[in-house]
């Protein structure tokens, strides 16, 4: 149950989504600075 491929896939997917959100916020706020300047 613990280490099956389904769980690994879910872990990878959740991590990628969270990392993606972090990168989007980083670039998004810099873009806001660019558009404002």
């Amino acid at each position, binding site marked *: 149950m613990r280490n099956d491929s389904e769980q690994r896939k879910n*872990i990878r997917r959740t991590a990628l989504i969270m990392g993606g959100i972090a990168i989007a*916020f980083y670039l998004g706020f810099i873009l806001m600075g660019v558009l404002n*300047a």
Partner: protein
Amino acid sequence: MTAAVADVHDDHGPAKGFKRWLFTTNHKDIGTLYLVFSLTMFFVGGAMALVIRSELMTPGLQFVHPEFFNQMTTMHALVMVFGAVMPAFVGLANWMIPMMIGAPDMALPRMNNWSFWILPVAFGMLISTLFLPGGAPASGWTMYPPLVLQTGDAFPFLIFSVHLMGLSSIMGAINIIVTILNMRAPDMWLLKMPMFVWTWLITAYLLIAVMPVLAGAVTMLLTDQFFGTSFFLAAGGGDPVMFQHIFWFFGHPEVYIMILPAFGVVSEIIPTFSRKPLFGHDSMVYAASSIAFLSFIVWAHHMFTVGMPLSGQLFFMFATMLIAVPTGVKIFNWVATMWRGAMTFETPMLFSLAFVFLFTIGGFSGLMLAVAPADIQYHDTYFVVAHFHYVLVPGSIFAIMAAAYYWLPKWTGYMYNEAAGKLHFWLSTIFVNLTFFPMHFLGLAGMPRRIPDYSTQFTDFNTMASVGAMGFGLSQLVFIYVLLTSKKGARATDRVWEAPRGLEWTVPSPAPYHTFDTPPKVRVAQESFE
């Protein structure tokens, strides 16, 4: 139950020597590393606070140059926020979350190792600026331009270290979210999770949303300084006020990043020592979520004096006041948990009770600051210093102390010295109030923040605060004594306390190096607590 989770991995236990700590992927080892690092930074930041309070003991300049005083205020804040409080909660999360949800470890153990080891590099770099020509950053932890751009050689060190701290926090937050969402024991539904786990889940979402915003802001500072951009330079068409908006869009949720896990800790401890389940568990979850949501829409209350339309002032004022509602839900739920409980007052409970009472004082002064016209008077005075120290010291730091005493027997396998713990509590509580309560009066009388000298009318309260700070600093040596003698007490039982609830109390004390290799049966564990 205990036998089922006992250490069945003796064949690959901890490595020996420094390699154990450098290469470890074990959540308990990494939790210990975070906690030791945080305690070290607590003393480094505390020493800086004592430099500040020594200078302010009497009017006039006596010990340090004003430039160095500014460096101390800046570094004290950065070290305490990013080096002491946040890593302490991450350390507690590393130690406790896998055990509380019945997981064998964090979901991404190698990233966990990286998250920690980035931190000493970041703080080594930041603290090394004290020895650079021009000294450490001195523009305040808020790093407002254009002032911060006048920082000397320390500027790129500051920017890089803030980036690294952010990276560490984001990786830690990803790990916590992934672990909680994917590695809970089969019967551990979301609303069954302990409050510490819930508050950390919400905190981790906040971290992922706002640490990149801080990173974006300091990246723009970097390009303004070295690559000819004008994001925040008025002379080049930029807007310095935009930095303040971006900074506080990070900064206000950051406040809740430092207090939500504290709410979680207190929500674990008060039921244990009241011998009752937490009153209104689900409403606590919704209250914490509401606080997190509201934290995103109140940032401009930090900048009322910058100037903004009346509608903006009203919006940010009322949105800020709204936070008192879910916070009140939490306070009343803790009180209701204690109501008619068979309470005892061991050290973790004492720190938790002081948290509830003193954090509420900080909350009320926050409400006063939320009133836009009043804030224009309070802004940049010691009233603000009193407010945020009340929520951070007898708030966050008392909760960290409570958590340390509460879980220490589970970590070491021995009961700590209760008399020394209580002495630590009483000295800390007396001196923390002696330090920060007079600052309310100083602020109301108009004493500005971040100055090394002041008018003689402020002398008495400043002397009280300085004596209090030194007493508070010395009191923490009692905590070191408790830690150093933590393996000299009686052996701790698996349950440690009379009435704790949660999977972490089903494993032996000290917790084995590997726990829950087989998923625990949550229902069986819960029935054993009834």
